[in-house]
C-alpha cells in the first residue's frame, strides 16, 4: 500500500483528501513540518486558501526544501490540488502577490469573464486532457469534474499543460512535468472521475 504524505499547511480541508486517498488504496499520513516528511511513495499538496498565506505557511513549517528534495531530486510523484496546483507556479497575483514553488514556471492570475461568466468558477465543468497525460488516463475529453476557484495557473511552457477547461476563454485545468502533477479541480470531490485521477496518481 503506497504511503502518501499529505501536506498540512494549516489552511486546507485535509480530511476530504485523506478519505479519498484511503478509498483509492493509499495510506495517507499528515505532514505538518519538513522534518516529518519521511520517505513517502507519493505526496499530495491539497489546498484551500489564499496563495500568499499558503506559501508563507509552507516556508514557516520548513516544508519547501524537503519537498523539493523529495520531488525534484528523488523523483517522488507530487499531486497539487486546486491551490496546491497554483503553488507550483513561479508567482501568484492573489492578495498582493507572492512567490510560488516555481516547479511549473508560470503565473497565477484571476479568471477574467469573457461572456458574462460568473467568478468564482464554481461547479462541474469539462476537462479536455492532452494526449499522453498519464494522470488523466482513461478519462474522456468532455468529462465533468468539480471546480471551485477564482484564480488559475498560466504555464510559460505549453508542454506542461495536461488539460484545459472551457471557461472564461479557456484555462489550464491540469499540469504535468516529470514527477510534478497539478489539477485545478477537486478529484476528492469529483466522485468516479476524481477517484480515477487519484488511482492513476497512486499507480505511478
Amino acid at each position: 500500500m503506497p504511503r502518501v504524505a499529505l501536506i498540512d499547511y494549516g489552511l486546507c480541508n485535509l480530511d476530504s483528501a485523506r478519505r479519498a486517498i484511503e478509498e483509492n488504496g493509499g495510506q495517507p499520513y499528515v505532514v505538518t513540518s519538513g522534518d516529518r516528511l519521511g520517505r513517502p511513495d507519493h505526496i499530495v499538496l491539497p489546498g484551500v486558501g489564499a496563495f500568499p498565506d499558503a506559501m508563507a505557511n509552507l516556508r514557516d513549517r520548513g516544508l519547501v526544501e524537503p519537498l523539493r528534495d523529495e520531488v525534484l531530486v528523488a523523483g517522488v510523484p507530487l499531486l497539487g490540488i486546486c491551490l496546491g496546483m497554483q503553488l507550483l507556479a513561479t508567482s501568484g497575483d492573489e492578495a498582493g502577490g507572492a512567490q510560488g514553488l516555481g516547479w511549473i514556471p508560470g503565473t497565477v492570475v484571476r479568471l477574467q469573464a469573457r461572456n458574462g461568466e460568473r467568478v468564482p468558477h464554481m461547479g462541474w465543468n469539462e476537462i479536455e486532457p492532452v494526449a499522453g497525460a498519464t494522470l488523466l488516463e482513461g478519462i474522456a475529453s468532455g468529462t465533468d469534474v468539480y471546480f471551485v476557484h477564482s484564480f488559475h495557473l498560466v504555464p510559460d511552457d505549453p508542454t506542461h499543460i495536461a488539460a484545459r477547461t472551457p471557461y472564461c476563454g479557456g484555462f489550464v485545468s491540469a499540469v504535468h512535468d516529470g514527477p510534478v502533477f497539478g489539477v485545478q479541480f477537486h478529484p476528492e470531490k469529483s466522485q468516479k472521475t476524481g477517484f480515477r485521477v487519484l488511482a492513476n496518481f497512486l499507480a505511478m
Partner: protein
Amino acid sequence: MLKTRIIPTLLYKDFGLVKGVRFDSRRAVGSPMQAIKVYEMRGVDELVFLDVAATLADRGPDFELVDDLADECFMPLTVGGGVRSLDDVQRLLAVGADKVCIGTTAVERPEVIDRAAARFGAQCVVVAIDTRTRDDGTTTAWIRSATHDSGRDPVELAREMEHRGAGELIVTSIDRDGTMTGYDLETLGRVTQAVRVPVIASGGAGSYADLLAAVTDADASAVAAASIFHFTQQTPAEAKAFLADAGIPVRR
C-alpha cells in the same frame, strides 16, 4: 460549459433531518448519514447541510457530526448553521466542509466575511440571504432563523457581501420554504442581476418546472431543493433530464 447544479438541501435539527415550512414546524424525516449515503450513490452534484437549530440555540456548529458526515461524502459539501467566527469556518473546513455558509453573522458582524475570504479564499465563503416579503410588497432579509427582520434590502445586502468577499450566495425565500409553490423568482432575479458571483436559488421548488424557471427566468447558477426530493417521487436524476431536455447544461 459550466453545468447548472442541482443541490439537495439537508436541514438538520437536534438529532435528525427535518422538513420545514416557512422555516417553522419542522418535523423529523430521517438520519443525515443515511441521506448522504443515498445521495452519494446517486451521484448528486453537491449537497447543502444546514443545522437550523444552532443559531437560535446560541451555539456553534456540531463539528464532530460534520466530520462523520464529510467522511462519507465524496461530493462537494456546503455546511451552515451557527457559524459565528473565523475559527468556526476554519474548523468546518478542517473536518471536511468544502464551503461554509454564513447567514446571521454576515449581517450582524460582516467583517467575518472579509476575514474568512482573505484567509481561506472567496470560493469557500457562501452567504445565505433569507428573504420575506411584507404586506406592503417590500422584501427584506431576515436573520436568526427567520425570527428577526434585519430591515436590509436583499439586493443591497448581496452587493455588500460580494464586495466583502463572498464567493457565492444562497438566496432562500422564507415565504416559499417548504410550500412547493415555486421560487421567489422576482427577488432571485434582482439578486443575480446585481452580482457577478454564482447564486443558488432556494426555497419553494415543487416541480422540475420550478427548477427550470430559476435558471431561465432568474439566471440562477444552481437550484437547491429539499421537499421535492424528500417528499415526492421526483429525483435529482429526473430533474437533470428535465433541464437537459430544455437545453440547460447539466452534468451527466
